[in-house]
């Protein structure tokens, strides 16, 4: 008896997003099937991994991760060049953590200078992230959008309480925009609708349904992403057809599992591979749920995810 593969009929397609810096570009999204289902449609763009760097030294990052960037962490431009040249980053995500009122409260002008300096020194695409402080981000991201106007970037994150200002700045300066909502498909949809209603091009949005780490709610992120992708593909919901980003590193590298040493918790095993695998598994899980762009921190975790993606493509 022969087996008839029950192929799924899809009705929608995810928008393709390309960001470029000079000759170098990355492309993600574009699939018309569920993640890695190239056996029944198009899944051609391998998810892209952007290395996260910051505008301040990563003093809050756990020891084993700080070690990796010990020689470059206190100089953002050096750090950017390091991930580009040594770690072969496809893209860089610059988080303006230092602008947060609790992390130094750097001014929007200072942040803009950092962005400019990084842009002048790299030739891979850039993602510019605020510090996730709703008021401060509105101020900072407007400024940095302007200084980056000759290099279309992805900026973010626009949230319900600040999206108007940030989206207007992104629109004026031709950037793409990450729209973040908190673990709810309806909130995500609503934010996308509000953005398009103010004239923002729906094909320039990247959805961030909020990340969570393995062991700390990843099942919620996983399922929201999966539902967003199903809505886009099965129901052809045009408000949910943007690629999805997983902001993995910052959710992973603060939990106990990536910091507690084996001396304290012998049954958890060696800390170094545990931390790396934790970030990698969080990222891989999200690619299976629909993430097309990942923001990550540890080079070994990035390698592991790439090895996985190579097997899946």
């Amino acid at each position, binding site marked *: 008896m022969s087996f008839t593969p029950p192929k799924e009929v899809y009705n929608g397609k995810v928008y393709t997003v390309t960001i470029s810096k000079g000759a170098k570009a990355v492309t993600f999204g574009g699939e018309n099937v569920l993640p890695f289902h190239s*056996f029944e449609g198009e899944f051609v763009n391998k998810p892209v991994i952007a290395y996260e760097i910051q505008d301040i030294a990563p003093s809050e990052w756990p020891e084993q991760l700080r070690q990796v960037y010990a020689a470059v962490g206190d100089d953002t431009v050096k750090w950017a060049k390091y991930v580009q040249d040594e770690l072969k980053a496809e893209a860089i995500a610059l988080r303006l953590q230092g602008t947060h009122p609790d992390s130094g409260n750097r001014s929007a002008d200072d942040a803009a200078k950092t962005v400019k300096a990084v842009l002048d020194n790299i030739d891979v695409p850039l993602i510019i992230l605020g510090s996730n402080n709703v008021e401060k981000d509105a101020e900072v991201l407007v400024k940095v959008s302007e200084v980056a106007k000759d290099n279309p970037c992805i900026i973010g994150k626009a949230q319900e309480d600040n999206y108007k200002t940030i989206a207007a700045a992104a629109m004026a300066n031709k950037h793409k925009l990450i729209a973040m909502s908190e673990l709810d498909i309806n909130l995500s949809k609503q934010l996308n609708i509000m953005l398009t209603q103010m004239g923002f091009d729906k094909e320039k949005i990247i959805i961030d349904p909020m990340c969570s780490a*393995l062991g700390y709610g990843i099942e919620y992120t996983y399922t929201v992403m999966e*539902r967003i992708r199903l809505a886009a593909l099965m129901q052809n919901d045009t408000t949910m057809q943007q690629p999805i980003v997983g902001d993995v590193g910052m959710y992973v590298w603060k939990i106990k*599992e990536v910091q507690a040493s084996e001396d304290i918790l012998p049954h958890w*095993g060696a*800390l170094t591979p545990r931390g790396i695998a934790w970030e990698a598994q969080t990222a891989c899980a999200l690619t299976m749920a629909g993430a097309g762009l990942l923001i990550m921190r540890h080079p070994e975790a990035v390698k*592991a995810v790439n090895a*996985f993606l190579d097997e899946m493509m």
Partner: protein
Amino acid sequence: MALTGVQIFKLLPKTNCKKCGFPTCLAFSMQLAQRKVSVEKCPDISEDAKKQLGEASAPPIRPIKLGSGDSAVSMGEETVLFRHDKKFVNPCVLSVAIKDTEDEAAIAKKIDDVLHSEIDRVGQHLKVDAITIMNESNDAGRFEGLAKVVAAKAPAVPVIVCSENVDSAKAAIAHFKGKGSLLYGATASNMEAMAALAKDAGASLGIKANGLDELSDLTEKAKGFGVEDLVMDSGARKGKEIIEHNTYIRRAAIKKGNKSVGYPVINFVMRDNEYLETMLAGLGISKYSSIVVLSSVDKWKNLVMFTFRQNIYTDPQVPMQVQQNVYEIGTPTQDSPLIVTTNFSLTYFIVAGEIENSKVPTWLAIMDCEGLSVLTAWAAGKFTAGKIANFIKESGVESKIGKKELIIPGYVAILSGALEEKLEGWKIIVGPREANQIPAYLKSL
């Protein structure tokens, strides 16, 4: 394939006698269609109708047990493709492969790794479920030697015996008779003999196919030889094939009622790159494997796999909140500290986990704030001094503790004054802001 209520109705006596507890046969058939009642409730149904219903109501993926006694694990019985539709039922079995070509020390270490793999995580005991012995040498004597060692050192651990060589399989499976093992390696050329061995040993039979066409052929063949407890390997090895085959199999079984692939799936994901192997186990966990076979089970790797499996197999329909209650973490006594926080499930899991890590037994008072986290609940006026005071008073925790001291989250330090006014006779202590500071804090008390 499952029958509709109306189809079931046609098989019932149609007398509306009410003996089943429902007013009409139609009402009963509707409940049957949703699998809410057992067909046995109708005393008058014909044997023939019962048989038809039985076949139709069999779960789309056959339930199969691996192992026996307390350490047996269940597989199959899945009903959906996506976890938001309904909870995934039986968590993917994690098994470590031991080859009969490995040296004694390596074998002993792996067995030991399995025996000592258990970890507690948010109230669940998680462990490596099974050992897979592999006849790499293709030598029956050598394989039996390995079987003996495993049977002696890990008598309670469920075993998967892997060989396509009938002599080897026979020699090894003899050591696991009646233990609910899985005999894996049935192919087109050895099916009859392997089926007989599995039946004789009370084992389920693992089909090894070359692609999906052959797979559905072989399961039918195995059934022809009287074996119905089957586990399937489509032959997929690369991640790309695994997701393709597993997806087609799950869809065919659930959406098309294709019984020839309605069995649990086994995937072999051994890789030299340990990270990659871990990620492929993750693929199996989220994409429909019932067993993944690994080359090693280091503790760090287990923690990642166990946690991911636990996360994917949680019930998505349970809201993100836990019940209001005073929970005992560890075995708290009169002198143990009392902490209050909100009932957002992540808050609860993280705080409870940190208290567990501290090894300081603690009373954890979880207050219903509609599933909001501390800061959000406070901002929304649900975690206020008045409400906390009422909750503590009504919880009855006062009778369980000696000193009337309450630790509140550092983020709501601002509430301590008002709370002391409202909770007369209590001392309010401001605890840490972040959960990860809890162990150090509790130990310093």
